[in-house]
């Protein structure tokens, strides 16, 4: 693909929401998410001549963003890793209504407190709507591991939410 600057800007506009949102959901920090998204796109600019198609670009962006995020949290240690069971109790939601902002906020916090690999798997599943096979391909991870991350994370989230509902009653 061409590394023409105008074409590149169009490409950034097309994919900025995907890359930025993955970083934002993972890090829960907009400024840091923009910084990492910018690094990913600069890397894309250098890589563009060797990418063959639009699909290749999307796949490459998901792969690089996911690995940058995992590397970031492993090396920088800006966010202390804590298992979901130890995550602070978020504010109780009144009900599971349509796009309840409090519940959404609580879910984003809970997802952000998952371990690195499980967090990326959940983001690709529920933000990018990828099926487990595509997630396995995007992360170079066995499909059984992806399914196990999804099942375990969903069970933990359900447990956490039901405890919250109990507290809220």
């Amino acid at each position, binding site marked *: 693909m061409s590394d023409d*600057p105008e074409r*590149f*800007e169009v490409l*950034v*506009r097309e994919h*900025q*929401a*995907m890359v*930025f*949102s993955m970083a*934002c*959901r993972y890090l829960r920090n*907009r400024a840091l*998410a*923009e910084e990492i*998204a*910018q690094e990913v*796109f*600069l890397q894309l*600019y250098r890589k563009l001549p060797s990418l063959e198609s639009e699909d290749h670009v999307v796949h490459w962006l998901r792969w690089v963003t996911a690995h940058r995020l995992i590397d970031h949290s492993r090396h920088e240690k800006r966010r202390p890793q804590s298992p979901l069971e130890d995550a602070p109790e978020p504010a109780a939601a009144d009900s*599971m*209504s*349509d*796009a*309840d902002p409090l*519940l*959404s*906020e609580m*879910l*984003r916090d809970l*997802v952000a407190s998952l371990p690195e690999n499980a967090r990326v798997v*959940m*983001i690709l599943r*529920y*933000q990018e*709507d990828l099926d487990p096979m595509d997630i396995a391909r995007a992360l170079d991870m066995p499909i059984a591991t992806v399914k196990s991350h999804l099942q375990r994370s*969903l069970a933990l*989230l*359900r447990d956490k*939410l039901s405890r919250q509902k109990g507290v809220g009653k």
Partner: protein
Amino acid sequence: MNLEDELRAALRREDPSPDFARRVAARAQSSTKPARGIPWMMWAAAIAALLVIGFSAAYEYQQIKAERASRDAVIALRIAADKLNIARERVVRRETPANTREN
């Protein structure tokens, strides 16, 4: 809504700040400009350095050759002077009469 739908709603995509794409494109362009200029400048600098080294080596070689030639000329002159002295002494000895020498 079940949990999975709630998660889709909570994790839906959102856009970065409005000038994000423009900033990234500007940074991409500025980061590649010096990279494109460097090889040309490096080639010019390398050729200039090679020319300077070549001329210096040639000049040095000429200097050494000139010094060696002048040293050889001095040695040749000394040898010639020694031989002339020997010849002069022999001539002086022959011209001087034997009785003068005995006295």
